[in-house]
């Protein structure tokens, strides 16, 4: 758990982050969103003290971040940035080993950990471990960047626009991988992004920052249904908010018993995708398939449309 | 925001103060050869109004504390004038009337203070980002002040100026010889190097061959290159008597200027090749698409775009040859090096300085002028 208390950053007259209070639950993904210059990156960097706060404090798992030297703190926190920041003169394995080495792990333990992480991120240790970053594709580099951040098993992972430099297809894959791995490891993830689509896709909770002030911190659906500030509405967009809302829930949420004639919809499918599938098939209802491919019930287009309305 | 402490200004200001009051300001020597007696700044200036100390303090504090770059430039300039006037004054004061043998030479204190303050001034000027014309004007102003100061007679008792007075006729001759060596060799290098660079354009094998040969030439020490040219030129003069009549021979001007020419060739050719090659292929393609002939593409597109790079190469060799020309004296080529090597031979430091100071000044001035030219060309080039 990360507890941020009245955290501020001022540069002379300019206040970049203004008395932000924020509690980030353990094992969740929290997205910090805002326009450029809203102070979201500064807020993130004050958590691992890459930027020292002007006032206020941060606790990670109850412990003040100022209770130890900044480098020691940062070794306990994973950090991923846009453009990955891999060390170009070090191999993939050496890059991943950075923090374990700083922590003085045994070489055998480092080797084992590196191999485990490479496999977890879908890279073959035999092929990729001894390559230099420049010899990898953009998507692979990005994965190595995340693997490096997770190498020492940090309980917290900070990400600053981690997928900003990727093309859309690789990006979607990377986002999916992140969610899978985060669920698997139970890491607390804080991700800064200006891409609302990404925030809604990944985050359990979203914090909206504007001009250094925290406007709203809530679950994604509440941002759409109960925006706390006009700026939040402007940021989330009003033209497609119904579809966005639908994208937050899966068919499993509104499945009702009984079989209908219509297309099969996996239970993990979002309502938005389900709606699209129904429109495409010209059907008004579809059958929901559970994880084993068994029909577990159905959803109707009417039920989906209701979920997407503000009056639900 | 709070005005921040300007570290370099404080550091170099402190060095200047320490040098002024902690090191000998002038050295008083019984004649031009013997070691002298160090004299501190206070003693050197003798009794007099306290006003001069106030002037020094006010300008000095201004130079260190001011946040305005132009004010610092002016203040450092005034400080240099103050040091120079103090030197001239001390020389007048310490020289017994009518004595032409005693030498009052600037001491470590003078040099260090002058260098620290000049460095601050150069830094201020650099940060002002003066335009080409303004920098040329500044150079002109410095030269004018220098000339006026020397012509005024105020500095006649300073050792280097005395040395100059003794060698005035030779100085004029060696100075112009120095210029002719440096400028002549560079002009020749441009005349030969440009066509060579053009010829290399689009012929990688030729470029490779030319550039590696010229790189080899650059590894030969300058004095050896001078020496190696003596034999072939002497032989040439013997076989072709007309050449000897023109003053071409084994020693003297000819081998010196040829050696300098050879050194200058590599940067000129390399930069010509680089400049021509770095023209965006899309631009050339577009020109060709509009129906320009290869000749027109060269004169109208490649050439103007490559010019700043080529002139940068010329800057490098001109500055380099201004310094290297001093070595020509070793093979009887003349130039300011004559004074340097004679001075080293006689252990007469004033004579060394009489050669070295103008050499440095010429190299610096050449750098400023050519930098201004490069910048002017860059500005004219549509970005």
């Amino acid at each position, binding site marked *: 758990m990360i507890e941020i208390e009245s955290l501020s950053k001022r540069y002379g007259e300019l206040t970049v982050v203004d008395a932000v209070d924020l509690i980030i639950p353990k094992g969740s993904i929290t997205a910090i969103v805002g326009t450029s210059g809203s102070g979201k990156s500064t807020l993130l960097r004050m958590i691992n003290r890459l930027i020292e706060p002007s006032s206020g404090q941060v606790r990670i798992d109850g412990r003040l971040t100022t209770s130890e030297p900044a480098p020691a703190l*940062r070794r306990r926190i994973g950090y991923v940035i846009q453009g990955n920041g891999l060390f170009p003169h070090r191999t993939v394995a050496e890059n991943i080993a950075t923090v374990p080495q700083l922590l003085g792990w045994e070489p055998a333990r480092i080797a084992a950990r590196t191999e485990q992480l490479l496999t977890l991120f879908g890279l073959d240790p035999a092929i990729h471990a001894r390559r230099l970053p420049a010899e990898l594709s953009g998507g692979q580099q990005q994965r190595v960047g995340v693997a490096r951040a997770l190498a020492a098993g940090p309980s917290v992972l900070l990400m600053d626009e981690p997928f900003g430099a990727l093309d859309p297809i690789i990006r979607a894959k990377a986002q999916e991988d992140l969610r899978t791995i985060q669920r698997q490891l139970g890491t607390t993830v804080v991700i800064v992004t200006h891409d609302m689509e990404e925030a809604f896709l990944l985050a359990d909770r979203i914090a909206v920052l504007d001009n250094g002030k925290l406007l709203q911190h809530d679950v994604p659906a509440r941002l759409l249904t109960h925006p706390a500030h006009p700026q939040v509405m402007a940021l989330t967009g009003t033209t497609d908010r119904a579809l966005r809302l639908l994208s937050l829930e899966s068919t499993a949420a509104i499945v009702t018993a009984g079989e209908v004639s219509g297309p099969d919809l996996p239970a993990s499918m979002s309502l938005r995708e389900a709606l699209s599938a129904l429109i495409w098939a010209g059907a008004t209802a579809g059958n929901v398939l559970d994880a084993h491919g068994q029909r577990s019930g159905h959803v109707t287009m009417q039920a989906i449309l209701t979920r997407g309305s503000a009056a639900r | 925001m709070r005005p921040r402490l300007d570290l370099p200004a404080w550091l170099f200001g402190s060095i200047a103060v320490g040098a002024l009051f902690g090191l000998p300001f002038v050295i008083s020597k019984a004649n031009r050869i013997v070691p002298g007696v160090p004299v501190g700044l206070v003693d050197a200036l003798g009794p007099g109004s306290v006003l001069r100390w106030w002037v020094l303090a006010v300008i000095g504090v201004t130079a260190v504390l001011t946040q305005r770059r132009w004010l610092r430039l002016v203040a450092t300039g005034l400080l240099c004038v103050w040091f120079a006037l103090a030197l001239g004054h001390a020389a007048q004061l310490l020289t017994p009337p009518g004595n032409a043998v005693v030498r009052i030479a600037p001491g470590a204190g003078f040099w260090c203070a002058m260098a620290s303050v000049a460095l601050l001034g150069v*830094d201020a000027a650099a940060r002002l980002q003066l335009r080409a014309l303004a920098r040329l004007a500044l150079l002109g102003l410095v030269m004018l002040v220098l000339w006026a100061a020397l012509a005024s007679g105020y500095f006649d008792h300073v050792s280097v100026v005395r040395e100059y007075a003794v060698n005035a006729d030779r100085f004029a001759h060696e100075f112009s010889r120095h210029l002719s060596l440096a400028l002549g060799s560079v002009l020749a290098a441009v005349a030969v190097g440009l066509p060579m660079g053009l010829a290399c354009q689009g012929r990688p094998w030729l470029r490779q061959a030319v550039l590696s040969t010229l790189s*080899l030439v650059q*590894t030969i020490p300058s004095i050896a290159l001078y020496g190696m040219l003596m034999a072939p030129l002497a032989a040439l003069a013997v076989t072709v008597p007309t050449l000897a009549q023109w003053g071409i021979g084994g020693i003297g001007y000819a081998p010196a200027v040829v050696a300098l020419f050879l050194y200058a060739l590599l940067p000129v050719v390399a930069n010509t090749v680089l400049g021509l090659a770095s023209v965006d292929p899309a631009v050339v393609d577009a020109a060709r698409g509009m129906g320009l002939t290869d000749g027109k593409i060269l004169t109208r597109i490649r050439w103007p775009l490559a010019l700043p790079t080529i002139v940068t190469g010329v800057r490098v060799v001109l500055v380099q040859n201004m310094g290297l020309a001093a070595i020509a004296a*070793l093979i009887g080529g003349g130039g300011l090096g004559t004074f340097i090597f004679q001075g080293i031979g006689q252990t007469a430091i004033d004579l060394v300085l009489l050669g070295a100071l103008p050499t440095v000044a010429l190299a610096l001035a050449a750098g400023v002028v050519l930098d201004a030219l490069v910048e002017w060309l860059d500005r004219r080039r549509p970005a």
Partner: protein
Amino acid sequence: MKASGVIRVGVWGLLIAFLLKPQVFAPAFAPLTQHDAPAIYDQGDLATLAWAHLGLVLTATSLSALLAIGLAILVSRGPGRAFLPMSRSLVGIGQTFPPVAVLAIAVPLVGFGIKPTLIALVAYGLLPIFENSLTGLSQVPASVLEAADGAGMSPIQRLWSVELPLARPLMIEGLRQTLVISVGTATLGSTVASQGLGEVIIAGLLSDNSAFVLQGGLITGLMAILLHDAVGLIAQRWQRPVQ
């Protein structure tokens, strides 16, 4: 690759053979002499002079490298950053300063012999290494530096394991330039009575013996090329082989 190796060994062999048994090469230089002058430098041992020359150059270059890299590190971080613009102007001025002038001005300060030569070589050798190191250090991408900080490296760990390795190729290029310049400039040291190959050339100039000048020039030229090449080779070995 193989051909260049053969040439390299051949040139080394030629240089060493010439230094150890110069008389063998006398016939090659004899046509350059007049009035039965000696074809091979006879006022000292060529190998000793070359050794002294090399020692001077390597000492000076090591000192230059230590100073220049140290300075470049200082002005590229923390409070030292305030000196960055000034150090750039200083490098600019320094490069216009003729080496002969540095030598000439050093003599009155420290007297004749090896000292003024060493000072001139160190001072003149600073510039290429300093400039290259500074460029190398400032070219390290900001994202890499941030990643290093984010991973919890201390400033020294970051410098040692990220910045210096990344700046190394450029630093070595500066070192090679300095070596070549120093081998040539060190010959000037002989005008102020410092031991080295300049003696051979100057003796040739004074006695109008082109054979001396040529052999002095050839030895220094070869030395410069071979040093340049050797540092390149060492640097290549040092960079890890990429699988």
